[in-house]
């Protein structure tokens, strides 16, 4: 009958099919195309030899172990920051929160190199302390532990942002009830806050894990010297020696990564199953803990971590930009701003790259938001096979190395689109679509976890007020999940702004992104220019974040992740 819905469905009937269609277009289509190419290649023989290759299994092992360890480290750092900065009365919250999301903007290879230098024989820090190891001592970061540590550092902000949104909607009275029950702050934290923020923690862990499985930059720098190959670095080597079988190998390796990330997703589902996180009634202001004397411990912790995560690599970058050549010590005599001058006024590519990257990442972040909210609505309470399929399909592109996504998109889009006869390939739009596909998972995670915590009565009250689906989405749901939505937009923006491997393959004249520009400068030996550009990117992001700060009053509460 017209206007009726099937029972048990609080959503319009078209919603899930629409989300399904989007996912089909963004994820399934390119991945399927790659799979077809792969199968075609393997059909010519060799599948067995790939599977029998011990390299595949050792890479799988390393991928798993580094990803798991990295996730644990990122959880430790990200969660402690989220809890400290959201729930306690630690001083300088806003500044620390602001600084904590910045490391995402520093290319991982820069952080890796900065750390390698900091801990190596030429470390200015260690030299100053006279504890620098002699030339030739093995670098401790070239190890599984080193990779995991860097994964942890690189992805901690993801965890922070995903979790913070959930912490904002903790029920205050629940915390109070626990304290009155006699629970110390620590117990309240362990028994009430931790379990209630589990959706956020799990979302953070999932993003972090998936990012680790697909990361190429860090294992390339820290793993290869120690002969530690992860699946992404192995994929890259397959591309470097192109044979007729390459697509087959790549598809197989990618399938391996996809399997790992689907397994991760299943673990996440498992962890959330059978629990209820709906905050009943009013969720008041975030609970404030008095740190008391612990702040003498917490405050240094926060700033020491920030020093290693942000300041050290950033100053390494800055130093790299100020010296004329690599290895020249930075003194007032050697310092020069010519790299900045060159980047700002001479290189035309800089401006194009800035414009491209900012519009691409802002566009992707903003376009993904509505899709994400619709998808979260459709998926949150859905527990069937189809729902799980869609969730996995959203997840997989982000878990694959950018180069694989890029290749898949070339496979789909290199030829003019059928029927439409337009070529997307070579334009900026293909990068855009690839970004949508790849970062969908990043955008979705925090929002889904916020949906898990919503009191359904709030939406019901809106329905009864006569608000149709979109109306209540705009008026009620979106403001209620605003902190998560804000986190999601900012996450996608920051990640996309810095993105390299997808655009590296998809760019063409005029569509360079910042990541590509920095990489190309670095690759061609102009590491000073590359550093200068990186510094400028960080400066740009900082100024955009400050701009947001000005807008903060007009945005819903909690949208901006470093404001409380």
């Amino acid at each position: 009958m017209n206007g009726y819905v099937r029972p048990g469905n609080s959503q319009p009937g078209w919603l899930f099919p629409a989300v399904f269609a989007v996912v089909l277009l963004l994820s399934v289509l390119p991945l399927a195309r790659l799979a077809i190419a792969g199968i075609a290649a393997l059909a010519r023989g060799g599948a067995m030899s790939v599977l029998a290759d011990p390299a595949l299994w050792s890479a799988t092992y390393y991928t798993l172990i580094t990803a798991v360890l990295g996730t644990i480290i990122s959880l430790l750092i990200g969660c402690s920051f989220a809890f400290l900065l959201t729930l306690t009365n630690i001083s300088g919250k806003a500044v620390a929160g602001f600084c904590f999301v910045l490391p995402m903007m520093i290319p991982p290879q820069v952080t890796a190199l900065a750390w390698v230098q900091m801990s190596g024989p030429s470390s200015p820090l260690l030299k100053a302390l006279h504890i620098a190891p002699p030339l030739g001592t093995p670098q401790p970061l070239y190890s599984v532990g080193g990779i995991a540590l860097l994964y942890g550092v690189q992805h901690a902000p993801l965890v922070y942002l995903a979790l913070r949104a959930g912490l904002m909607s903790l029920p205050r009275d629940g915390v109070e009830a626990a304290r009155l029950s006699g629970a110390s702050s620590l117990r309240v934290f362990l028994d009430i806050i931790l379990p209630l923020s589990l959706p956020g923690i799990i979302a953070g862990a999932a993003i972090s894990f998936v990012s680790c499985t697909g990361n190429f930059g860090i294992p390339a720098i820290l793993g290869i010297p120690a002969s530690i190959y992860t699946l992404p670095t192995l994929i890259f080597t397959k591309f470097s020696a192109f044979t007729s079988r390459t697509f087959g190998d790549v598809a197989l390796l990618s399938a391996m990564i996809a399997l790992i990330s689907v397994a991760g997703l299943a673990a996440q589902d498992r962890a959330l199953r059978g629990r209820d996180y709906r905050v009943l009634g009013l969720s008041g202001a975030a609970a404030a803990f008095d740190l008391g004397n612990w702040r003498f411990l917490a405050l240094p912790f926060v700033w020491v971590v920030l020093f290693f995560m942000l300041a050290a690599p950033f100053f390494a970058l800055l130093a790299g930009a100020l010296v004329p050549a690599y290895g020249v010590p930075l003194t007032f005599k050697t310092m020069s701003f010519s790299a900045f001058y060159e980047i700002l006024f001479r290189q035309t590519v800089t401006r194009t790259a800035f414009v491209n990257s900012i519009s691409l990442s802002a566009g992707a972040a903003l376009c993904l938001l509505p899709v994400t909210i619709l998808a979260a609505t459709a998926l949150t309470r859905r527990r069937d096979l189809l729902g799980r399929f869609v969730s996995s399909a959203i997840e997989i592109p982000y878990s694959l190395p950018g180069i694989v996504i890029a290749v898949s998109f070339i496979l789909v889009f290199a030829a003019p689109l059928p029927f439409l006869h337009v070529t997307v390939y070579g334009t900026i739009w293909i990068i855009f679509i690839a970004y949508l596909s790849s970062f969908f998972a990043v955008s979705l995670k925090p929002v889904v976890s916020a949906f898990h915590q919503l009191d359904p009565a709030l939406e019901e009250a809106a329905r009864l007020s006569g608000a149709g689906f979109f109306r209540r989405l705009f008026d009620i749901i979106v403001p209620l999940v605003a902190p998560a939505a804000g986190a999601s937009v900012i996450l996608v923006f920051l990640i996309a702004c810095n993105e390299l491997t997808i655009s590296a393959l998809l760019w063409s004249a005029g569509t360079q992104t910042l990541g590509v520009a920095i990489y190309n400068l670095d690759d061609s030996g102009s590491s000073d220019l590359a550093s200068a550009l990186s510094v400028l990117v960080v400066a740009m992001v900082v100024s955009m974040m400050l701009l947001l700060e000005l807008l903060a009053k007009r945005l819903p509460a909690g949208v901006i992740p470093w404001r409380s």
Partner: protein
Amino acid sequence: ANLVLYTSQPNEDAQATVDGFMAANPDVKVDWVRDGTPKIMAKLQAEIEAGNPVADVLLIADTVTLERLKEAGKLLAYKSPEAASYDASLYDADGYYYSTKLITTGIVYNTSAAFKPASWKDLTKAEAKGLVTMPSPLTSGAALIHAQTLAGVDGLGWDFYKDLAANGAIAAGGNGAVLKSVASGEKAFGMVVDYMPIREKAKGAPVEFVFPTEGVSAVTEPVGILASSKNADAAKKFVDYVLSEKGQEGFLKLGYIPARNDMKLPEGFPARDTIKVLPINAAEALKNTDQDLKTFSGIYGSN
């Protein structure tokens, strides 16, 4: 449509080449894309797989790669009139590709290093223990050629690589990483392509470059035309241009050794005849690539 060039030349160099060509051929417009050889190849292969390769001309790392494309039937044969001025070993006899410059791989050392290496063998000395780094053939095309070249030399061979490994050498990342590692003093010695340390030294970096006595390997950044090109005429003009004296002067100015006979050498290089370039057979090397990579990984413990 514009002529599309895929190249692995560094940014500025690519721009300079293209600018020079367009100045000489004002009627042709060139769009170019640069990236590391593996990425460019991945892009190209994916395009081919999708049935619509975009590139017309390739100007990328090494002859082995182009040899592979030639064997797959993806290249167009073109006999350039400029070929006469080139050593026959530097281009394909059927005209599928032509080398454009010589990028040699030698030894870079930090000026604070304990000794000044003169030959490849020096890197296996006890003083160099744990202080040697080299690019990995798995990430750098030049490094692969280099390994394959040295492996074929009497007295070096794979044993040399084994000795290096025993001496604590590591194979990491690309040439850029090696340079950084040596320049920053983290390692003392490295194998690296010539122009990088020479340029950096000029800017003041504490590094020196040596052409070892046994000889150096070279990649030659060949140019070739794709069989599927819809701009074959313009593409041919491009090939002619980069091979011409004018085009070669451009490379010289950028600090590379031109492939064309009788050209000068850039600033900071020793005389041409003191540089012994070790030969490599592209077809042969191509056949052995998989095996060589395995051998290398075997030595450097990967997997």
